[in-house]
């Protein structure tokens, strides 16, 4: 019935397809169905079909809208700063000859720590009274701050911790892009008499465009979904200053047990991320090589 080639294709294709479907597709479809019901963790089964009620409710939920703004601020800050910082470090790492491996290993360490551990470590470091950060500051005569307990500072602290944690990812991706670049355009630029800055803007950046877009897109998506760091560091507080969307959704599902509503919000988030991905992809393909 099947040719040999088709058979071996199927043997490799079907198991992976089944695993993917069971772990990715099934929950996705289940959550989609759930988002149109009044499903709750208090009851068995999916609950009653209530059409688009959950989706309309989202737009009247002031706490959700507040968390959207917080997430936007968080994502923009985190992605921009991590990209800038990551690019600078990647460029420097690409140039040095000696000790590259050592630097690289040290820089990569934070990325290997799980977000919960990162949060716990920083909570201890930033303890206003007993933490080492304020102690170090006091040694040089600077008065310490209530990093996570001050409504004006909490977001800044969370952003800084996230940068510490996630910058290695940026460095890794961008460095890979830099290393794999051809050397000819650089030689040509040199012959044409281009300065360092010129070479960077006219050669490096255009050649790196694809990598940069992938890096930013990846990071933006994971930043929008940030939940664990917030959970450990601030629980959304003080007040609601660090309450991001994912944390808000988590509470709807596990504190308010309102899984139908939480699914609807999750789907909306998925939609936003999906649109974002498409836009980025379109942008990256619209001008093939400047």
């Amino acid at each position, binding site marked *: 019935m099947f040719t040999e080639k088709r058979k071996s294709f199927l043997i490799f294709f079907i198991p992976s397809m089944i695993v993917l479907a069971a772990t990715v597709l099934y929950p996705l479809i289940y959550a989609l169905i759930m988002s149109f019901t009044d499903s709750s963790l208090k009851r*068995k089964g999916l609950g009653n079909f209530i059409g688009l009620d959950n989706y309309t409710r989202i737009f009247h939920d002031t706490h959700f809208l507040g968390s959207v703004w917080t997430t936007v601020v968080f994502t923009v800050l985190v992605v921009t700063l991590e990209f800038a910082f990551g690019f600078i470090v990647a460029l420097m790492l690409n140039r040095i000859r000696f000790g590259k491996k050592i630097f690289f290993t040290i820089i990569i360490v934070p990325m290997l720590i799980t977000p919960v551990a990162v949060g716990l470590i920083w909570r201890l470091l930033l*303890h206003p*009274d*007993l933490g080492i950060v304020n102690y170090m500051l006091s040694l040089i005569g600077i008065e310490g701050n209530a990093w996570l*307990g001050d409504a004006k500072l909490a977001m800044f602290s969370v952003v800084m911790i996230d940068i510490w944690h996630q910058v290695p990812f940026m460095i890794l991706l961008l460095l890979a892009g830099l290393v794999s670049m051809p050397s000819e355009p650089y030689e040509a630029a040199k012959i044409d008499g281009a300065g360092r800055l010129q070479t960077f803007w006219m050669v490096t950046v255009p050649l790196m465009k694809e990598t940069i877009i992938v890096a930013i897109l990846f990071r933006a998506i994971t930043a929008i979904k940030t939940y664990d760091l917030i959970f450990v560091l601030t629980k959304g507080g003080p007040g609601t200053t660090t309450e991001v969307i994912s944390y808000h959704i988590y509470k709807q599902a596990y504190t308010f047990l309102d899984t139908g509503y939480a699914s609807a919000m999750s789907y909306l988030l998925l939609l936003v991320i999906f649109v974002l991905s498409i836009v980025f992809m379109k942008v990256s393909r619209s001008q093939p090589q400047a």
Partner: protein
Amino acid sequence: MKKHWLIGIVTVLILSLVTACGSSKGDGGDKSAAAGPAGGTKKELNILMETVPDTEMVQKVTEKFTQETGIKVNIEAVNYSSMHEKLVPQLLGATSNYDLIVVDNYWVGEFTDAGWLELLDSFIQRDKFDTSVYLKSMFDMVGQVKGTTYMLPFYNYAMALVYRKDVFDDPDLKSKYQAETGRELKIPDTLEEYVNISKFITKQKGGSMYGSVMMGLRPDPISVEWLNYLYSSGGDFYNTDGSLRINDDKAVKALELYVDNMKNAAPKGAAGFGFDEAFNVFAQGNAASFITYNWMLPKLQNASESKVAGKVDIANVPGGSSLNGGWGWAIPKNAEDKEASWQYLKWIESFNSAKERALLGGSPTRRDVLADSDVVGVFPHYVKVQYILESSKMIPIIPQAPQLIEILGRELSEAVSGGKSPKAALDTVAKEVAALK
């Protein structure tokens, strides 16, 4: 050809999804009914508990139970914040991995309302287990609900004022306070005076010590701490007729005092402190008072864990009514072998086991253990604890208590961080709590 395969797989998946939903509804009921009194044959019991000292006491004494009965007991101890989300899916399923669970007092309304807990009355009557030995405030909270017994009280965590004797007895501070205010520096009778003293100590000690250390992290730490202020100011969640009074004058006054203390006496950053952070500040000797769980006292008196050992004492929260808290043992309705679960429950809550746990440092719920001469010999402060327990008040037992705490925690944090005025924050609480389904 490829496309057909893909469509086929997706169809099968969707079908399996639909049938899975259907069947889970169906056999859920059947199984829980079938797993009735099957009769104590289970050789291993699984219990979900929290990582707290009282769990360690249980682990220590449970070996005896295994020796006596041959039943192995596996205790899974997890962090508080992951307990609720671990329990709910288990309780919803057709069968539960856990044969016995411990229930925090503010889950009681939710769990009993959802019918997740086995009724214990028939076991209690059959084996003539005496429940009158429990303190009334404990048994009303984590024992029975509306006359039906669902749980046996496991341990208490009523809150109290833990304070530094040496600071409150300091003659220098005392004379300065007398000179400045004309009043005596002592453990005060009112919350207002407590906040005054707290601010005075912080001002006098200029950053080396704070009048009180507080915990302003959302949602539980700030909520439970503030409820002491609410109850001690004469406020409450509900009037006797069931209407909400969480935003009345007394509640607003309680929140104003709380915010005042947080801003002017507590360490910088206390608005973000969780329980451990606040505890460490006190244990390091940097705070004069701390409204916390009464079972913290033995920990603070232990020189290997705290720098203030020997200098600490306990008192009722100024104003007289602290927040009561406690955990109850319960058997999930979908537990596999309820008879075996009950055998263990009966054993661990017997006078001898309860006393043994108390002697190891556990927090008793039984009056006979609290007053036992051996126990009081080791822990003399239990005389005060019994008094505190009797005058304390609990979080209302309603199914929506976890949601209530979440809303309350968020709004209190808003008030503390200056995002809202106390009145506006409590108005929001009242509005959202009234809308809870």
